[in-house]
């Protein structure tokens, strides 16, 4: 065993990188669920985002265009879900599961001729001398742009839900769509916007995986991250800061256990591999153990179909 080979600074920098896809997807799903919609298709939207972004980045040579395409591709997936559940009133759970299966399939089809190709590199940002500062530099000033975007999104969503009128309407729609409708707010518009936003976020998360972290295309490369994002939203009691905590915890334990495996620690690899899941869920369950407060923050109309009856 050689713990000395684990550098805490690099570990933190790496965990921020590894957590970003989950954080992005979870933040999108947070908004979707706050509007009262349960979209279980996060995994499917992520992987469609991953391949859409990958294809466009490879064909154009521009990672930035790749991220745009990822957001668009996953949003299309989300809108399919939206039309089915909001207009045709299909069951949200079944439709979400279907969306995941569909996404896994369609992404495999789209990616057939892209296996084994390297995408154009998306460099980390550097901030003049700041990036060279020991400890702080690699962590805070030498990350990929999307890492900063995801962190800004945490603040923006928190602010949006807490302080803006539009955020209040979103919460109201998720809390009681009947009451919101009676007051004249469009439940459908609000939910469609939320669903599309959730799709775009999941797509960005997927593309971050295929363009930055891995970076290449393999079938099923999201490997359950969409599901973790879903779980994090619930266990974080629909609070953006706790979503950040949950995502970084998961990413952190993932990176740490990989380091420990590399260091040859005498714990079975299987246990190490399951540890991120166990620890993340455990911590978030403990945080949200105050049932009453958690219940008060849960959108009361979550997963219920809305039909404006006159």
């Amino acid at each position, binding site marked *: 065993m050689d713990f000395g080979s684990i550098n805490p600074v690099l570990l933190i920098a790496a965990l921020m990188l590894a957590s970003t896809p989950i954080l992005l997807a979870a933040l999108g799903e947070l908004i979707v669920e706050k509007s009262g919609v349960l979209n279980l298709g996060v995994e499917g939207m992520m992987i469609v985002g991953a391949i859409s972004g990958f294809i466009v980045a490879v064909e154009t040579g521009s990672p930035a265009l790749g991220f745009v395409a990822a957001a668009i591709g996953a949003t299309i997936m989300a809108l399919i879900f939206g039309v089915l559940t909001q207009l045709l009133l299909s069951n949200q759970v079944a439709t979400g599961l279907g969306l995941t299966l569909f996404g896994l399939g369609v992404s495999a089809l789209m990616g057939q001729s892209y296996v084994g190709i390297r995408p154009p590199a998306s460099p980390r940002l550097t901030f003049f001398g700041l990036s060279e500062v020991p400890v702080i530099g690699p962590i805070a000033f030498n990350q990929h742009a999307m890492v900063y975007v995801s962190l800004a999104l945490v603040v923006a969503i928190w602010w949006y839900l807490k302080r803006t009128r539009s955020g*209040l309407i979103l919460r*109201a729609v998720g809390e009681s769509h*009947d009451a919101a409708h*009676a*007051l004249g707010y469009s439940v459908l518009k609000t939910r469609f916007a939320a669903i599309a936003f959730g799709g775009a976020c999941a797509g960005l998360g997927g593309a971050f995986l295929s363009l930055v972290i891995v970076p290449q295309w393999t079938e099923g490369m999201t490997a359950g991250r969409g599901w973790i994002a879903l779980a994090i939203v619930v266990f974080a009691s629909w609070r953006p800061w706790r979503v950040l905590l949950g995502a970084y915890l998961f990413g952190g334990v993932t990176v740490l256990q990989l380091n420990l495996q590399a260091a040859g620690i005498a714990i079975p690899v299987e246990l190490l591999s399951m540890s991120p899941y166990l620890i993340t869920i455990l911590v978030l369950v403990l945080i949200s153990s105050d049932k009453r407060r958690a219940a008060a923050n849960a959108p*009361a109309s979550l997963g219920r179909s809305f039909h404006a009856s006159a």
Partner: protein
Amino acid sequence: MSAPLLELRGLRKAYPGVVANDDVGFTVGRGEVHALLGENGAGKSTLVKMVYGLVRPDAGEMRFGGESYTPGSPHEARQTGIAMVFQHFSLFEALDVAENVALGMENPPPMRELAARIREVSETYGLPLDPARLVGDLSAGERQRVEIIRCLLQDPKLLIMDEPTSVLTPQEVDILFETLRKLQAEGTSILYISHKLEEIRTLCDGATILRLGKVVGSCDPREKSARELAEMMVGSELNPPAPQAHDLGEVMLEVNALTVPPASAFGTELRDISLQVRAGEVLGIGGVAGNGQDELLAVLSGEVPVENDKLRFKGEPIGATGPNPRRAKGLLTAPEERLGHAAAPDMSLIENAALSGWVRMGMVKSGFINWSKARAHAEHVIKDFDVRTPGPGNAARALSGGNLQKFVIGREILQKPEVLVVNQPTWGVDASAAAAIRQALLDLAAEGAAVIAISQDLDELMEISTRFAALNEGRLSAPRDAAGLTIDEIGLMLGGAHGMEVAHIHEEAAP
């Protein structure tokens, strides 16, 4: 200023299979309190939804303040100067009072300013309210204050109130009326929907009566008796339930010093409840919702087991037995919540009849259901209680609230219970059907059964009760003979105005 504030002409709205409103027209003058009367399904709600911009009329014309008025959404209605207090509260439980108010306003000020204005207006009108509290923690009366204040903050010219008093104690109703008169004096018009005719007689200047979507008359309610108004609504003569004199028998059900802790964070604790009910009597239990009614019913039905000897049926301890053994003995219950508690929403009426009736009606033999017996029972209920439905195979969900209520009450009564406990037996049921249900309860008592009727409708309890007791914060008052009780006395038994008088009498309040 001679033009009326709101003028409706020839309004029509049809839904597939139903004409909700047909050629409806009336006017509301400035500063007038106008009542809209009618039974369930008469089209009152559709009509006010058209005025509030939630539903577009198929034909007809609305004028507001002399100008043509065609609201496309509630936003436009609010901008025009129309505010509405909804029958089923349009509130968000997980949001606080200020946020709820903000959602009902077109251009809410910043939150801090809004909180100050909520305090100010609530003091002015004697409706104390803390803007920072979560609506989920408020009582029904307080929730309604939120709705009213939300409307008042917009200085409406017309205030629509859809059955605002159904959840208030008599004292709270008095205070509400004072607020409304204050508004009227300031020149606000009020369109008031209620089925409580006495209230309309004391409050309103004019009334329009709807039946089956059409205007069937208008009158000055102050010049009519409640009975005349009711008959205009129903379109036929009303037979108020008539209790028959009969002797009381032995004690059928007895509760001894029962204390039950609340089942959930939002539940009510039952404290030291004792009661006795005799064969042949109707014990009325009044109280505002949320004071332990549901908990009491759950204990009596057997959903919540208690110590065995706390509850005695004909002297035999039954506190720990479940609902089905109690049914077998003859103790039946009909809970308040029709969909989901009294009836399974997506199951047919036959199945719903079988679910509660199989024990006493012999519908099950060695584990197999005799469906023809279940169907016969359901059809019997439908016929005897005038349940309007295409047939017993229809899902419970498809019935209107009043019709389903008739079904779930009838289902129990036809099982010939020895003790029947009902919670809110006529909630949301129109006048003639309510009279029929009350008559059935009285007949049941006359045949020698004991009936416990839990209700918020005090007029109803006065009509059917032999004795009356009040349930307040989980405590049951000592029962008193119902004959001779006044509404004021009952109001005090119910705990008075729940703090609503604070703003009015705090000078005198100090002892």
